[in-house]
């Protein structure tokens, strides 16, 4: 037995002629928090559904908890908690009823679930909503309930597909805090996101995915080190001038990306670079010096931004 809870090699998924996942390899070990970062359509959800034993692969090898999801789907799913991209709570039932019936789907005894519900409502900060119909909950509350629901069976692996997409910043931060607690408790997390800050905050290790393929893999820090400089200077000269002025600044930095609205200059000291640019006679309308992020990694790897 290996230490890996999930082992995937050469995983391919086609929908008709369309290749949604194109021969990817990765593994996830126990208590690791593992992320998939990529834009819409990258193949993240498709991969998650194959790991979660609810969709069949076209080719490749997949082992989850040492079992093949195609052969032992229900046995694997008994150990997973899944937060799907699209909520599928029962709107006609209350918050606690949703948790209860979900626990029953795992065949758990009613007594166990009832005691678990208190703990989960506390975790999801939904105690006051216990007997309220799900219909009336806000998006953030529904998302927290879906996460709580996924935890009712004390899963060995928690799979989260875009846990915070569509939420406002505050609801998002509450969720991150909850997920961070799980991570601290040693729950193995598998999550997808197209938010680089989410990936940076929650993932020990991640894959950057685009158009069904893996572009890079590593810890957030490693990826930034490998594919970007320490700092970035963002300058704006107005949309007409950006492309025009870019060549003259090429020599001053390690690398540059010219976007329609701004120029990104990669360097180890952004403040210093700005001084140089100013003394060379360029006067950007605005400038921003910041640390490199996974967004820059993605831009470097694909030539496109993550969120469009």
């Amino acid at each position, binding site marked *: 037995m290996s230490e890996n809870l999930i082992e995937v090699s050469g995983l391919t998924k086609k929908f008709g002629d369309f290749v949604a996942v194109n021969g990817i390899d990765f593994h996830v070990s126990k208590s690791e928090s593992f992320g998939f970062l990529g834009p819409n359509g990258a193949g993240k959800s498709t991969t998650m559904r194959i790991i979660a034993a609810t969709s069949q692969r076209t080719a490749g090898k997949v082992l989850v908890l040492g079992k093949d999801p195609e052969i032992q789907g229900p046995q694997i*799913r008994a150990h997973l908690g899944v937060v799907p991209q699209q909520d599928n709570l029962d709107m006609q039932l209350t918050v606690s009823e949703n948790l209860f019936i979900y626990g029953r789907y795992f065949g758990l005894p009613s007594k166990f679930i009832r005691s678990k519900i208190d703990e989960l409502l506390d975790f999801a900060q939904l105690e006051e909503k216990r007997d309220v119909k799900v219909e009336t909950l806000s998006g953030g509350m529904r998302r927290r309930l879906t996460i709580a629901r996924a935890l009712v069976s004390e899963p060995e692996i928690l799979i989260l597909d875009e846990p915070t997409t569509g939420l406002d910043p505050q609801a998002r931060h509450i969720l991150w805090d909850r997920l961070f607690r799980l991570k601290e408790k040693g729950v193995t997390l598998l999550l997808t996101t197209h938010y680089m800050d989410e990936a940076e905050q929650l993932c020990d290790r991640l894959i950057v995915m685009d158009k069904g393929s893996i572009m890079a893999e590593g810890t957030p820090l490693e990826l930034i080190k490998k594919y970007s400089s320490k700092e970035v200077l963002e300058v704006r000269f107005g949309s007409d001038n950006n492309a025009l002025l870019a060549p003259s600044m090429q020599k001053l930095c390690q690398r540059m990306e010219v976007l329609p609205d701004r120029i990104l200059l990669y360097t180890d000291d952004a403040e210093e670079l700005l001084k140089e640019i100013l003394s060379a006679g360029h006067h950007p309308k605005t400038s921003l010096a910041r640390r490199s992020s996974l967004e820059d990694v993605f831009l470097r790897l694909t030539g496109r931004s993550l969120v469009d």
Partner: protein
Amino acid sequence: MSLTQSARKVPIFGARYILEARLRTMSKWVWIILAVTILNPLLYLVSIGVGVGSLISHNLGSHGIDGVSYLTFIAPALLASSAIQAAQDEVIFPTFQGFKWGRMFYGMNATPQTGSDIASGVFLAAMLRTTLGVGIYSIILYLFGAMNSPHSYMAIPIAIFAGAAFGAVLLAFAAYTENEDKFFTIVGRFIIGPMFLFSGTFYPINALPLVVRFFGWISPLWHAIELGRFATYGHHISATMVAVHFIYLLAMLVFGLFFAFRQYSKRLAK
């Protein structure tokens, strides 16, 4: 209690937990379900059973149709038709809801539950509702004096059987349906509607021209009615026809469930 022992196994006969959840949802509507279940037969019996019945016995004597009173004649038909309608409602709407409107089936399927478990659970819940409806209906029939031949009770299992047969087929149909508007127009208007009209509920089907009798032959309701009349008051049909009616309904049940299980699983994995 520790989960390491109690959980993380695949539950045996998982469908019962789906059934449990379905009953919980249905219980939210229990008053509406009960009202419909009681009012529907009352209205029918007063208007048609008693009203039309008295007209018929006035014209033809108390052994008006098929050698029995009109109420005795229509009792098995009313039971079977109510069973089929209850079964139909409780498989179609939950299936559309589960796959499309609320996507709950995808949540269930993320647990050890399989497509077949989910289909079975939905079907079993529909059968419980059908049995409840048939039970209440037969009590009301009894109170109207429509259940007083010695074998009247036989209409009850036959009605439930018919509900199961038709429910199974519609469970499959609904699972294949991506566009529910089309389903209601095509299946509802052009199949189910005529089927109910030409099944011989209120008069024998051979009073109809041959062309429309076809709707009766494919209709589970007609087969159930023939069986019901045979069992309750000895309506004259050959042993072969008894077997044909029975096998027709059984085939609907078996094939319906087979395709329902298959399509539930396929659609969830898509």
